[in-house]
């Protein structure tokens, strides 16, 4: 994992800072180490690097000027939102400019009739739903960091949340992303209509981890708030039974508003933290939510209860009011901080798997716990197959850190092997860049680099993230295996 030692070229630093000061006020350009140090990492604190220069623009025109200046000087630019990302996507450049969009905090327009809100990228996810609540509307994607993460970061990562099986990801809930290319040209991806002429560049831009363009404005779709929401909490004495219950709910033709699972160690950790009244005897707990019109929710809850009971649930409780519903959810939403309290450090994984392979993957994780001598509670977006195993470790012990990394790598590779992916919603960033070599072949990785060049020929925007070079894959030594053949036949191996 990364080191914090700055290796700054001071002459270059001065040159770049001065160039930015030509059009930015003093408060918007940071370069002294005491000012730049707070930007050394995002939510993935294991990777740190002090940026050469931090720019804090306040207007789109300033963003444009920064990009033009950096492009002309050949200086790398790394955009950053709230800094809550979990894959090191906003790890700063030691030789470039960290472009913070933290000052882009305004809600520009709310149109309750068209059901859209136009916001700046620094607006927090949860703040959107708060500000449109008086109109009976909300913004659906709700990543667990929603009180802190910003919509610009959500766009970069295509963030999900606990309701995305029914309501979709960021890509399904954003109509337009407005911003600038690395050359400083203004560009719109999408529109306020449901589609646009030409290629769907909006779909390409969302989840591109800040490698294709810089976002300065986002138009989000708002949904009418459901009349009622209720959640079932179901206990199972066996994790595989809980997995089968998830399949049974879907097979019954129900798409729950939320369908989450926690295993016993995760439940124990969160119960200590939030006192939600979770069943501590259960091997796994399912939270299964229904929302919609009152009559419909009554119906669906009854059907889901029936399915869960037949799937072997040992205890079933249905929230009686909204306070109780939120209490049932409180533990799941607080799973990460709760785990943070029982261990000095934890490492959160983000693989997605076909749901039917859940039992196999959880057994595999159990075996890895033994192999590496580290504990690993699991929380799981069960409805869409997105696993968040949390490896508990102590970063002060270098050996534990090493074992954690190896543990995580094995789990992610297992996810690929069962037909899943190394990242469901946190992004590749710097963290999972080596595992990209397992998931994709050389030809696909080359295509990703070519797409990047189509937008950013000089490779200045968030360089070194998300897509590994082929030589890195060769060094990593774990090439993609396709039909029994290695993916990079032409490359030397070490």
């Amino acid at each position, binding site marked *: 994992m990364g080191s914090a030692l700055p290796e700054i070229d001071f002459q270059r630093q001065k040159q770049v800072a001065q160039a930015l000061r030509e059009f930015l006020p003093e408060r918007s350009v940071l370069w002294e180490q005491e000012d730049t140090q707070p930007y050394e990492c995002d939510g993935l604190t294991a990777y740190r690097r002090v940026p050469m220069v931090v720019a804090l623009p306040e207007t789109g025109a300033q963003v444009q000027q920064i990009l033009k200046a950096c492009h002309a000087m050949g200086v790398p630019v790394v955009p950053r939102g709230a800094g809550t990302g979990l894959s090191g996507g906003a790890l700063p450049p030691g030789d470039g400019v960290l472009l913070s969009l933290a000052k882009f905090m305004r809600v520009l327009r709310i149109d309750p009739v068209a059901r859209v809100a136009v916001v700046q990228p620094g607006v927090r996810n949860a703040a959107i739903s708060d500000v449109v609540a008086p109109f009976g509307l909300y913004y659906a994607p709700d990543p667990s960091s929603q009180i802190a993460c910003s919509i610009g970061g959500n766009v970069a990562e295509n963030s999900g949340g606990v309701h995305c099986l029914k309501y979709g990801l960021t890509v399904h809930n954003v109509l337009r992303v407005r911003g600038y290319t690395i050359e400083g040209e203004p560009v719109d991806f999408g529109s306020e209509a449901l589609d646009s002429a030409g290629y769907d560049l909006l779909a390409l831009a969302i989840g591109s981890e800040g490698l*294709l363009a810089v976002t300065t404005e986002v138009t989000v779709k708002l949904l*009418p*708030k459901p*009349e009622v929401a209720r959640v079932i909490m179901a206990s199972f004495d066996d994790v595989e039974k809980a997995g089968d219950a998830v399949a049974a709910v879907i097979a019954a033709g129900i798409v729950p508003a939320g369908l989450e699972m926690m295993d016993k160690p995760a439940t124990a950790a969160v119960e200590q933290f939030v006192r939600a009244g979770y069943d501590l005897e259960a091997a796994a707990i399912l939270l299964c939510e229904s929302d919609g019109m009152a009559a419909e929710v009554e119906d669906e809850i009854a059907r889901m209860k029936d399915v869960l009971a037949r799937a072997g649930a040992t205890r079933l409780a249905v929230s009686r009011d909204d306070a109780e519903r939120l209490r049932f959810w409180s533990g799941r939403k607080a799973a990460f901080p709760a785990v943070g309290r029982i261990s000095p450090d934890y490492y959160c994984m983000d693989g997605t798997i076909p749901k039917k392979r859940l039992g196999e993957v959880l057994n595999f994780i159990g075996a890895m716990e033994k192999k590496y001598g580290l504990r690993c509670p699991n929380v799981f977006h069960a409805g869409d197959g997105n696993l968040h195993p949390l490896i508990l470790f102590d970063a002060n012990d270098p050996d534990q850190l090493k074992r954690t990394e190896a543990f995580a790598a094995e789990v992610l590779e297992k996810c690929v092997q069962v037909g899943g992916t190394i*990242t469901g919603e946190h992004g590749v960033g710097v963290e999972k860049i080596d595992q990209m070599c397992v998931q994709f072949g050389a*030809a696909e990785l080359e295509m990703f680099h070519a797409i990047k060049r189509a*937008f950013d020929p000089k490779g200045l925007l968030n360089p070194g993230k998300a897509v590994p070079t082929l030589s890195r894959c060769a060094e990593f030594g774990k090439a993609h295996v396709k039909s029994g053949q290695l993916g990079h036949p032409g490359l030397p191996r070490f």
Partner: protein
Amino acid sequence: MSPQLSLTQIQERIREAAGRGLPLCIRGSGSKDFYGNAPRGEALDTRGHAGIASYEPTELVMTARCGTPLAEIQAVLDRENQILGFEPPHFGAGATLGGCVAAGLSGPRRASAGSVRDAMLGAKILDGQGQLLAFGGQVMKNVAGYDVARLLAGSLGTLGVIAEVSLKLLPRPQVERTLTFELPQAKALEQLNRWAGKPLPVSASAWRDGELALRLSGAGSAVGAAAQKLGGQAMDAAQALRYWDGIREQSDRFFAGAAPLWRLSLPSQAPALELPGAQMLEWGGALRWLRASADARASESVREAAARAGGHATLFRAAEKTRGAFAPLSPVLARLHRELKKTFDPAGILNPGRMYPEF
């Protein structure tokens, strides 16, 4: 009928064409030959690469090859009470999955259940050099690498032969009911936007000739409660099926005749456009159809009106499309399109000109 090509044979044809710089016209059944600019190049039949590769009802995912007929997919889904949420138009009995994704056209359920692109989870393509590439996967959430699978929806085959796709499915709604209301266009737009802001199970809407039809889908209790709130006239179930078929497949009387058909994609609340010709609304007001005069000058005014309203206009069906089927792109977007096209198809042989004349 051309011979049934295997994937390897399709790959060889692309390699050969790329080497010689000869354009290929990628084609399934030809049900969407009318769409976009006129096809040119030697036909490359994709129907030989067919079949459902995997289908897991409890995962809500199906993976199928490009030549698979949509009708076959729907028959298989039917048995498991599942549907393609985007309710694709076929525009012909033999319509294939590949053509459906390449055209990227969605049907009446689009405003509530999402588009073709929204349902795309993964794809395998043959690029312009015949390389077989796999993007995305078969899981709901996947942010590894750029989302190329979704980019392919609506790319009209210009980025690659879409060989196989994985799609997210939805359960079939338990109950559907259609209500009709007598309303002028402006009033219909107002109502549709108001209803869309309420938690009602509206799954489709269409307005033409002063009549608004609204389809409700979901649990019986929800549909019943909503129908009571909304009022209107109930349409007979069999008639409703025919009605929505007619809207989706454009066999409805609105689409009869030879007058050019424009598709306008607009913000749903955009006021009724003052354009000569009959209009029809779908998608809660976000999709508008216009039967315009064949006058070439009309092209400019339709495109301008759509752009002013915040959307774009496509000349969907017309005997003559010399002004281009699709709205022109801004200079920066046009450059990005050209660069992407070069990336996927450096020899420029896949469906050249079908989307824009310059590539």
